[in-house]
């Protein structure tokens, strides 16, 4: 990730510009969220007036059914997909396959991992966990008439050849949405490869999937967020393509889809929305900078999170969506170093939200599964800790004992974990309290 960290840094040479720009980005996202229900209604009305069809789904199951119904109406059997994290939430490919519909990923990274029956390990670079040798072997095995090559240009050429045919023959295209502007009813798709444009312009039907939080109030909100996104994500001043879709093919147009469907998915977002602090989670524009800069993510990789969204954003999103009972462990998989907070282009206070979720897990609150992360042993430990540290006489006794006897404590429990790669911490012979008393440092 060092390369990406460097590339991003080059894109933000001026700290003042960065501060002003991210403030604008955060403001645009916060304003959109503050007016979310109204903006969604306005977006829906504009999109319908533009000739799109709009569908709503509370759950991923409902979203899948909506997509299936659209495809079935057209008798569609072959679907090409642009990159969409919402479709990953839905496990749309598996769902469609189970209904006899081929759903082919066309983003090169997504195509590679789909060939190997995997899920993305990064939201921007889904196949970052694979090296070219693995990809060369995979293509050799899975693609007919593909010669074995480790040359990246040649591998890319093989994928181009296969996927061009698929675009040409597809009955429908599915895409995500980066921003949906309520003012004009326009869907914005950001990409470098052109597969998104292929998926949204070549087949006769286009289905766009978006989470309810993706809406923006005004067109003018797009430029600052676009530049924040591409610079933060991959260190590019802009992506190769910005595809702005406002309507299906008009009467005189010679190409473009005849139907455009927008599926608006909730999937726990409206629950997250209920709490003003947790709501900041929904500002995310999915740039992935938090992952690239995370010392944990860069060491464990995306699959270790066992979640659709890995890395810091995943650590706050997944427990809120799936519930703290099963996923509160994710909130602890952070040293709270704040590297993610520092680079987040929309100022999501990820560290604070992690602490909030830890509190919800142990002490109850509003998040699904709140209080279910509490264990008796842990609660007892902290109760004892409090007793000692809220009482100067108790602390004096314990710290005296620790400095006299602490070195004899055997390396068990947490200390065992600590000492796998470290020496045991050595207690001092006297505490600072004692030394200051001896030195005559006044205490009032």
């Amino acid at each position, binding site marked *: 990730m060092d390369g990406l960290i460097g590339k991003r840094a080059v894109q933000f040479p001026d700290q003042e510009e960065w501060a002003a720009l991210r403030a604008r980005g955060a403001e645009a996202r916060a304003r959109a969220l503050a007016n979310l229900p109204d903006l969604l209604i306005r977006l829906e009305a504009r999109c319908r007036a533009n000739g799109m069809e709009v569908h709503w789904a509370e759950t991923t199951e409902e979203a899948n059914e909506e997509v299936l119904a659209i495809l079935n109406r057209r008798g569609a059997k072959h679907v090409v997909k642009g990159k969409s994290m919402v479709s990953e939430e839905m496990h749309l490919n598996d769902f469609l396959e189970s209904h006899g519909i081929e759903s082919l990923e066309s983003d090169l990274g997504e195509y590679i991992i789909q060939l190997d029956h995997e899920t993305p390990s990064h939201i921007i670079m889904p196949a970052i966990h694979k090296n070219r040798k693995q990809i060369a072997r995979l293509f050799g095995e899975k693609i007919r008439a593909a010669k074995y090559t480790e040359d990246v240009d040649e591998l890319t050429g093989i994928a181009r050849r296969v996927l*061009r045919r698929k675009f040409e023959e597809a009955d429908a295209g599915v895409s995500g949405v980066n921003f949906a502007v309520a003012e004009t009813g326009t869907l914005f798709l950001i990409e470098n490869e052109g597969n998104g444009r292929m998926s949204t312009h070549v087949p006769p039907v286009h289905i766009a999937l978006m989470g309810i939080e993706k809406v923006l109030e*005004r067109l003018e909100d797009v430029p600052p967020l676009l530049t924040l996104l591409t610079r933060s994500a991959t260190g590019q001043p802009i992506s190769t393509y910005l595809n702005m879709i406002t309507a299906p093919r008009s009467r005189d*147009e010679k190409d473009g889809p005849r139907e455009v469907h927008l599926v608006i998915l909730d999937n726990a977002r409206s629950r997250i929305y209920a709490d003003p602090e947790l709501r900041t989670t929904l500002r995310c524009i999915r740039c992935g900078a938090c992952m690239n800069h995370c010392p944990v993510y860069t060491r464990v990789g995306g699959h270790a999170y066992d979640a659709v969204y890995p890395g810091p954003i995943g650590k706050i999103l997944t427990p809120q969506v799936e519930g703290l009972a099963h996923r509160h462990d994710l909130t602890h998989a952070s040293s709270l170093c704040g590297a993610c907070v520092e680079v987040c282009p929309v100022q999501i206070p990820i560290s604070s939200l992690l602490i909030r979720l830890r509190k919800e897990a142990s002490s109850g609150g509003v998040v699904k599964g709140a209080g279910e992360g509490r264990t008796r042993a842990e609660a007892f430990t902290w109760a004892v800790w409090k007793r000692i540290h809220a009482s100067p006489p108790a602390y004096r006794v314990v710290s005296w004992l620790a400095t006299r006897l602490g070195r004899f404590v055997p390396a068990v429990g947490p200390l065992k974990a600590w000492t796998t790669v470290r020496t045991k911490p050595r207690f001092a012979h006297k505490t600072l309290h004692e030394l200051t008393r001896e030195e005559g440092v006044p205490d009032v």
Partner: protein
Amino acid sequence: MSETARGRILERLRSASVGAQRAERGAQVKQPKRSRDERVVRLRTMMEAVRTEFLEADRESWPSTVLAFLVSIGAKRVLHGANLFSVAPPDSAAVELVPYDKPIEEWKTDMFSNIDAAITTTRGGIAETGTLILWPSPDEPRLMSLVPPVHVALLDTNKIHDTFADVMRDENWAAGMPPNALLISGPSKTADIEQTLAYGVHGPKRLIVVLVS
């Protein structure tokens, strides 16, 4: 199902709207102010950095410049918009000019398999990021800048704006967006294999901008 879902989602959002958090509106990001010539240079520099090629021509000479280029790369069949040429283009035995004059359904395979290049106009450019603005139309449909492996784009050097925000505001895009609008900032590319940059993955492998002044 969709209607019930809609009602429930909106109801939950509405019941939560109290205590909405607002962020401070950031200061205006300082705008570069470039002269016309500086804008041309900036656009070209930015686009060349992502392997875009450039030709220069004037209002009269561009058809012969473009055709000469197409011949030089061995393009045989070249797609163009129905009203691209105000006067008949120079005859070339080597290049067949194909107007986009029928719906895609009638010739999809032909377009995917047998078109070597396409020539389109552009609505303008953006200097800051090195970007072309295209508003596809019945005359110049959406796929022209996507499917053929070579895209030749004519850019009027008087129509290069400083930033995306500028052009949106100056042309009042909010008043009405076309069915499809595009920003294009280079040939198709990917870095999905080992973060190694490769060009021409799905869209055009080559993008040639003809600066027309």
